[in-house]
């Protein structure tokens, strides 16, 4: 039973990780790429962590897995925000199809 759940969760997690990488490769500009990478990779890594915790099955490794998960959930949005801010202010060109740029001309 544990093995089956682990297998499902690992397959889902690696599929999300692959989707994140495909998004980073195929999206048109930095901001869309960044949102693909941060969202999908957080979800994928979460699934992989659940599977590993099920496989290890003892308290010490559960604590480690939970701390990795909490750390990733806390830091990924911060890292994404910092990259987006830095790339916007260093005037990386937006994609042609961008509909709204609220800070245009304000700097």
């Amino acid at each position, binding site marked *: 039973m544990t*093995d*089956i759940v*682990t*297998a499902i969760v*690992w*397959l889902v*997690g*690696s*599929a999300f*990780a*692959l989707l*994140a*990488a*495909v998004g*980073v*490769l195929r999206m048109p500009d*930095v901001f869309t*790429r*960044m949102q693909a*990478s*941060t969202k999908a*990779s*957080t979800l*994928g*890594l979460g699934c*992989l*962590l659940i*599977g*590993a*915790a*099920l*496989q*290890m099955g*003892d308290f*010490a*490794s559960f604590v*480690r*897995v939970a*701390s*990795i998960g909490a*750390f*990733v959930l806390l*830091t*990924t949005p*911060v*890292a994404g925000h*910092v*990259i987006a*801010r*830095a*790339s916007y*202010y*260093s005037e*990386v060109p937006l994609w042609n199809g961008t509909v709204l740029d609220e800070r245009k001309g304000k700097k």
Partner: protein
Amino acid sequence: MLEIVSQITLVTLGVALLLAFIRLVKGPTLPDRIVAMDLFGMLVVGLIVVLAGWSRVRATLDAAIVIALIGFLGTVAYATYVERGDPQ
């Protein structure tokens, strides 16, 4: 069964690493490369976590913690560098 599944998972994560690496090489601007590096760190943490669950060696998880930490610090440092520019 878990043997095969973990091999499939590891191969999928490897392919994802390869795609992120292509973006890292192509990446027209510097922030593109930073995003690719960030994803790279995330995928490596995932790879190590799967290896830890497969081999049941607990010390492997500590390596994953360290890599997650260093990846975040590296991303923030790169972003600060991009925003401030080269110190003259």
